């Protein structure tokens, strides 16, 4: 009994420590955004590279996944609704499922698998090899040079890829529909645009910003907890991914509430 209480207490303390540290990290991130050095060539180079690694290299896989999900979900759902005479609800159902829910979630999952893991390993190795100390010794703020470009590129790529997902999945869905049902592309696009509301667009962008921020900031913050042992890197990777998983769930809940 005592052990259970102690372990629960320790977990609570660890969680509080994480939230306090992560809050301080977030404050430092926003402060760093006002540092004029973020417009200097060295930081721009890191930003461009991170955009390439996060948003460009993933495009073939991402397009395939978007198309496959579009064929299955948009096509399947619309066909199902038309068969049951619910054509009028096609737009709102597609917008809610594709734009509000699926696009941010699928993009977040793919970016987590590809980029967040890589960023955790990269920052953890830099921390272990004292390369972050090197930056400090050169009067270079690691927030400005390392973290801010990665976090900003995460937000931008999250937004860009989610929008691409919406387009590709709707196109993929239409491919199926055009073969099976007598539905014109104009009709599909028209019903989708009619179903767009300010709330849906707002929730879509709130989710993109939050997910983009969490996708990069949580792995970076977790990687910075690594000490001097190589064995700490897989542990940081595991912790980072679990924290990110919880963050994605929280964002999804926020999306439902809004």
């Amino acid at each position, binding site marked *: 009994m005592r052990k259970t209480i102690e372990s629960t207490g320790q977990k609570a303390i660890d969680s509080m420590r994480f939230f306090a540290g992560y809050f301080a990290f977030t404050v430092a991130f926003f402060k760093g955004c006002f540092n004029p*050095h973020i417009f*200097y*060539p*060295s*930081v721009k*180079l890191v930003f461009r590279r991170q955009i390439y690694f996060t948003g460009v290299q993933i495009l073939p896989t991402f397009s395939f996944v978007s198309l496959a999900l579009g064929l299955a979900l948009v096509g399947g759902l619309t066909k199902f609704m038309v068969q049951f005479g619910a054509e009028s609800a096609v737009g709102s159902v597609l917008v809610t499922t594709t734009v509000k829910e699926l696009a941010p979630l699928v993009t977040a999952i793919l970016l987590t698998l590809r980029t967040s893991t890589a960023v955790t390993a*990269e920052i953890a*190795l*830099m921390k272990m*090899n*004292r*390369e972050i*100390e*090197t*930056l*400090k*010794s*050169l*009067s*270079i703020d690691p927030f400005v*040079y390392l973290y801010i470009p990665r976090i900003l590129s995460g937000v931008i790529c999250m937004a860009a890829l989610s929008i691409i997902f919406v387009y590709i999945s709707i196109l993929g869905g239409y491919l199926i529909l055009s073969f099976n049902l007598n539905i014109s592309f104009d009709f599909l696009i028209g019903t989708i645009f009619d179903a767009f509301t300010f709330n849906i667009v707002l929730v879509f962008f709130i989710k993109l910003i939050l997910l983009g921020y969490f996708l990069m900031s949580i792995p970076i913050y977790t990687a910075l907890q690594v000490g001097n042992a190589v064995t700490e890197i897989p542990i940081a990777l595991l912790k980072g991914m679990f924290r990110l998983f919880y963050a994605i769930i929280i964002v999804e809940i926020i999306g439902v509430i809004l």
Partner: protein
Amino acid sequence: MSKYLIYYEHEDTADAWMSTLLRYAVQKRLGIVSGSFPIIGNLSVIENILLPAAYHHKTSYENGEKAIIKDLRKFNIEHHLHSRSNQLNNFERFIVKFLQVKYLEPDWTVFFNPRRMFIAEYEEQFHQFLRCEDLKKSVIIEHEKHRYLFEDMNDYIEKDFDLWATQDLNI
């Protein structure tokens, strides 16, 4: 010209000095050449050297490239322009670290435990480097047991760390 040699006897003293210098370097530009601050592994040699110049002085890649090639040629390592840290030997890493610090344009260049940065076979090259390189304000901090390495360095004066820190760095 201010060139000092500072010796320590215990590792604890060296660690304390290093912490003091790092705290100072975060605020003001101090070029620390030390194995404790390695070059960045996922950047090439040219990117490593250009990093402080691009961050502090807005130097572009195109503008910095020619100067860096010229500097690397002096040490016969211009072929390593696009190499990563793991493709360099200990002395080449030391040179890249030194050039990185040089492009920071610091008031002082500090060689902290230089003996640890390269193996014995590069000792002569290191001496040659110190003799040829035009360092106006530099400090070598080394363990007492390596004092013999710097006995012929006549332009370097032995000094106390605290004295240097208070008089020259105003710490």
